[in-house]
C-alpha cells in the first residue's frame, strides 16, 4: 500500500519535470509540487501542527490547495476541506466541530471569530519556496487507524457530518478508481469541480497517483474557461456533474462536440445522467468514453457504468452499473438483511470494502446506525437485475408512498425527461391535497416552447402505471439545484408548500419565463404565414397616445441580411460602436419609429418584445440587436436602410433576429430581490 504522499515523493524523483497541477498560468511539475509540499509542511510544523491534529483549509481550485492537502498529511495531521464559497460563519462552525489546529484561507472573515489561528493559504504557499528545506517532507508511515482526512458534508438536514477517511480508506478509494476506471499516466484531466467534494477529491488523487496532469478550473461561471483550458493544455479527460453537461452544451453551442470530442473519457459523478442525457451525449461524442460513477463521501467511487456501452441496451440504459473492483454491494431490508430484489421489490443499497469511511467525526451513534457488521447502509433505494446491474430508485426518504404503492421519483423523472418538450424535471412526493392517498407524486418541469401539459400527461399514461402519474405538474423556469447541481428536493417541497403563485401558471406565463436569447440558427426558412402572425403580434403592442407611427421592415433574403451585416460592421468600426451577436438569422425585423414621436423608443420596445414572444410560441428563436439605434444615419448603413424603404426620419430602435434555434439558449439567473411592494 503506497500512500498518495509517498507516491508523490517518488514521482518527484522519477518524473521531476512532468506537469502535475496546472491552474491558468501557474504550472507545477511533480518536482515543483514536492518542493511546495515540503516548504509548506516545514511552515505548518513551525506553527505547531503535529500528528493527530486537524488542519482546515479553503479548498480553492488552485495548486496551493493540493500542496496544503499533502503538507498537512506530511505533518501527520488530518486534512479538513472547506467549501471555498462558504460564508465565514460556516467556516467557523466546521473549524469548531473539527477542533482545528489551524485554518488556512484568504477569504476575508468579516470579523467572524474562529476557534483557531488563521493563516493566509496564499502566503504560506508563496513562503514555501523560501524554506529550502527538502528534508521537511519525508515519507509517512501512518498507523491503520490514522485519520488522513475529514470530509464535511452538509447533507439535506442541516447538521454537517464529518466523514472520517483513514489512510487505508483513501488508498483503496484511489486504487478502486484507478483499476475500475483506468486512469493513466498520459491523462491530462480538466477538473472544474469544487475541490472539497468527495468526487473531485477522488479524481484529483487518482490522476496524481498515476502521474497524470490535473488542470483546475473554477466551475462553469465563465463560459470560455473550459474551452480555453482544453485548447491551451491539451486536456484529454474531464470530470463533470450531470448538470454541467447542459451548462456546457448551451454555453459552447457548436464548439461543444469539437472541444469535448478531444477527450479520451468524461467521467460524470455526483449524480446519474438521465437516460435522455446518456443518449444525447453518446450520440454527440461518439469517440469519447462516457462514464457515470455512483459514489459518496463515505465510500468514494463505488458503482461504475460505462455509459457508451450501456446505452445501447434498452434494459440497461439507466443503470448505475456494477461495483468497482474492491467494492461489494448488497440490497438489504430495513433491518439490514440481504434480500432478493427486483424492480418491484427494491431495498437499500449496502456497501462493503476497505474503502469505507471509519465513521462520522464525533458522532458515534450516527456511525453505529450507518455501519453494521462492516457494511455501510446507504439511504438509497435500489434493485439489482439478473445480470448484476444495479438500478437507482431514489433516496429512501424521497420514495413516494401513494396509497400503499411505492413510486420512485427517478423513474418518473426519467420517463418525463424523454418527452420531447421537457427541458428538465424533478419529481417529489407531497401530501395528497385530497387527503386520500397519503402522498402523491408532483412533477416540476422546465419546458421548451411547444410544451403542452395534456401532451405530457398522455405520454406518461401511455408509458407508466396510473399510480405513478404525477397528480400535479408545475411549470417553473428552472429546477433549483444544490452546489453540486443535484435537484434541491427540499427547496421544491418548500416551493410546493408555498405554491399559491404557481397555481396561476398559464401558457403565456410559461413563455415569458422560458424564452431565452438565441444567436445561432439552422438554415430552415420561417414560413410566410408564421412571419405574418409574428408581425401581427408586433403591431398589436401598445402605442403611446395610439400614435402607431412605427414601421416594421422585414428582411428574409439572405443577400439583404448579409449586405446589412457587412455595412453595419463597417460603420461600427468607423464609429467605434460595439457590434456583436448578429449570428445567421433567417429573418430580421427592423422596428423603426418617427423621430418626432417622443414615445418612439418605448413603442418599438414593446413591439419587439411581442415579436420575440410570438416567435417563441412557434418554436422560433430570437435576439434583440440594436446597433442601428446609433448607426441609423451613419454611412454605409444609411444608404442600405434607405434602400429598404425605411423613412429617412425614422430611427431604427430594434432589430429582431429570427430563426429556428440550433440548440437552446443559455438560461440566465434572474435576480429575485428586485421587487419591492410598497
Amino acid at each position: 500500500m503506497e500512500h498518495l504522499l509517498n507516491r508523490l515523493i517518488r514521482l518527484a524523483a522519477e518524473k521531476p519535470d512532468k506537469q502535475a497541477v496546472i491552474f491558468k498560468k501557474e504550472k507545477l511539475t511533480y518536482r515543483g509540487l514536492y518542493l511546495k509540499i515540503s516548504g509548506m509542511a516545514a511552515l505548518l510544523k513551525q506553527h505547531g501542527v503535529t500528528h493527530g491534529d486537524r488542519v482546515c483549509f479553503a479548498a480553492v481550485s488552485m495548486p496551493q490547495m493540493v500542496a496544503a492537502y499533502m503538507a498537512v498529511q506530511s505533518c501527520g495531521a488530518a486534512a479538513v476541506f472547506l467549501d471555498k464559497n462558504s460564508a465565514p460563519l460556516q467556516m467557523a462552525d466546521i473549524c469548531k466541530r473539527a477542533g482545528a489546529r489551524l485554518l488556512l484561507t484568504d477569504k476575508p472573515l468579516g470579523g467572524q471569530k474562529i476557534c483557531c489561528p488563521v493563516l493566509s493559504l496564499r502566503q504560506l504557499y508563496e513562503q514555501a519556496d523560501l524554506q529550502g528545506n527538502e528534508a521537511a517532507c519525508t515519507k509517512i508511515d501512518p498507523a491503520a487507524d490514522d485519520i488522513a482526512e475529514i470530509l464535511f458534508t452538509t447533507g439535506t438536514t442541516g447538521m454537517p457530518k464529518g466523514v472520517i477517511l483513514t489512510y487505508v480508506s483513501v488508498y483503496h478509494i484511489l486504487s478502486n478508481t484507478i483499476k475500475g476506471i483506468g486512469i493513466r499516466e498520459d491523462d491530462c484531466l480538466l477538473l472544474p469541480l469544487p475541490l472539497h467534494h468527495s468526487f473531485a477529491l477522488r479524481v484529483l488523487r487518482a490522476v496524481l497517483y498515476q502521474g497524470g496532469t490535473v488542470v483546475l478550473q473554477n466551475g462553469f461561471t465563465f463560459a470560455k474557461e473550459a474551452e480555453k483550458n482544453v485548447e491551451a493544455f491539451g486536456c484529454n479527460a474531464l470530470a463533470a456533474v450531470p448538470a454541467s453537461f447542459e451548462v456546457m452544451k448551451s454555453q459552447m453551442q457548436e464548439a461543444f462536440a469539437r472541444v469535448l470530442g478531444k477527450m479520451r473519457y468524461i467521467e460524470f459523478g455526483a449524480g446519474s445522467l438521465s437516460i435522455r442525457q446518456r443518449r444525447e451525449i453518446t450520440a454527440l461524442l461518439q469517440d469519447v468514453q462516457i462514464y457515470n460513477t455512483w459514489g459518496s463521501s463515505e465510500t468514494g467511487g463505488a458503482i461504475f457504468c460505462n455509459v457508451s456501452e450501456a446505452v445501447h441496451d434498452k434494459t440497461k440504459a439507466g443503470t448505475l452499473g456494477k461495483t468497482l473492483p474492491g467494492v461489494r454491494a448488497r440490497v438489504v431490508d430495513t433491518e439490514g438483511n440481504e434480500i432478493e430484489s427486483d424492480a418491484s421489490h427494491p431495498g437499500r443499497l449496502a456497501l462493503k470494502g476497505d474503502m469505507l469511511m471509519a465513521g462520522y467525526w464525533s458522532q458515534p451513534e450516527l456511525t453505529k446506525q450507518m455501519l453494521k457488521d462492516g457494511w455501510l447502509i446507504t439511504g438509497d433505494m435500489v434493485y439489482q437485475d439478473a445480470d448484476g446491474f444495479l438500478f437507482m430508485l431514489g433516496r429512501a426518504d424521497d420514495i413516494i408512498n401513494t396509497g400503499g404503492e411505492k413510486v420512485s421519483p427517478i423513474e418518473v423523472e426519467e420517463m418525463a425527461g424523454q418527452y420531447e418538450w421537457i427541458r428538465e424535471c424533478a419529481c417529489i412526493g407531497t401530501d395528497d391535497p385530497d387527503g386520500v392517498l397519503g402522498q402523491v407524486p408532483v412533477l416540476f418541469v422546465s419546458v421548451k416552447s411547444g410544451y403542452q401539459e395534456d401532451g405530457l400527461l398522455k405520454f406518461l399514461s401511455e408509458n407508466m402505471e396510473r399510480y405513478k402519474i404525477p397528480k400535479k405538474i408545475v411549470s417553473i423556469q428552472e429546477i433549483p439545484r444544490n452546489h453540486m447541481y443535484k435537484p434541491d428536493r427540499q427547496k421544491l417541497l418548500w416551493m410546493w408548500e408555498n405554491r399559491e403563485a404557481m397555481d396561476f401558471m398559464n401558457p403565456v406565463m410559461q413563455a415569458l419565463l422560458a424564452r431565452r436569447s438565441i444567436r445561432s440558427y439552422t438554415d430552415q426558412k420561417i414560413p410566410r404565414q408564421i412571419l405574418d402572425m409574428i408581425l401581427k403580434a408586433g403591431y398589436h403592442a401598445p402605442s403611446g397616445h395610439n400614435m402607431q407611427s412605427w414601421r416594421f421592415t422585414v428582411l428574409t433574403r439572405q443577400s439583404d441580411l448579409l449586405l446589412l451585416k457587412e455595412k453595419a460592421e463597417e460603420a461600427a468600426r468607423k464609429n467605434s460602436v460595439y457590434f456583436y451577436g448578429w449570428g445567421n438569422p433567417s429573418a430580421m425585423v427592423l422596428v423603426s419609429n418617427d423621430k418626432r414621436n417622443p414615445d418612439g423608443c418605448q413603442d418599438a420596445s414593446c413591439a419587439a418584445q411581442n415579436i420575440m414572444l410570438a416567435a417563441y410560441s412557434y418554436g422560433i428563436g430570437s435576439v434583440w440587436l440594436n446597433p442601428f439605434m446609433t448607426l441609423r444615419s451613419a454611412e454605409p448603413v444609411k444608404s442600405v436602410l434607405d434602400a429598404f424603404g425605411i423613412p429617412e426620419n425614422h430611427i431604427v430602435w430594434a432589430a429582431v433576429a429570427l430563426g429556428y434555434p440550433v440548440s437552446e439558449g443559455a438560461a440566465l439567473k434572474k435576480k429575485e430581490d428586485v421587487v419591492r411592494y410598497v
Partner: protein
Amino acid sequence: MEEKVLEVLAQEYPQIDFSASQALVDDGILDSLTITGMIAALSMEFGIVIPYEEIIEENFNSVKALAQMVERLRG
C-alpha cells in the same frame, strides 16, 4: 480608475471587500450572481458594453484587472 471602480462596486455590494484579494474569483469571494451585478454596475457607470469575450475570469479577479478592462473598453 481603480479608485472609481472600487467606489462603484463598494456602493453596489457594501458587504464585499473588493480590495481584499487579487484573486476574487479564485478565492471564492464572488459568485456568479454577484458577477452579473458587477457587469451591470460597471457598464452603466462607465457607459461601456462588456462583450462576451471579456467575461473571463482574469478580468474579474481584482479591482485592478476590472479597472484595466473598463479603460480598454472605453477606448
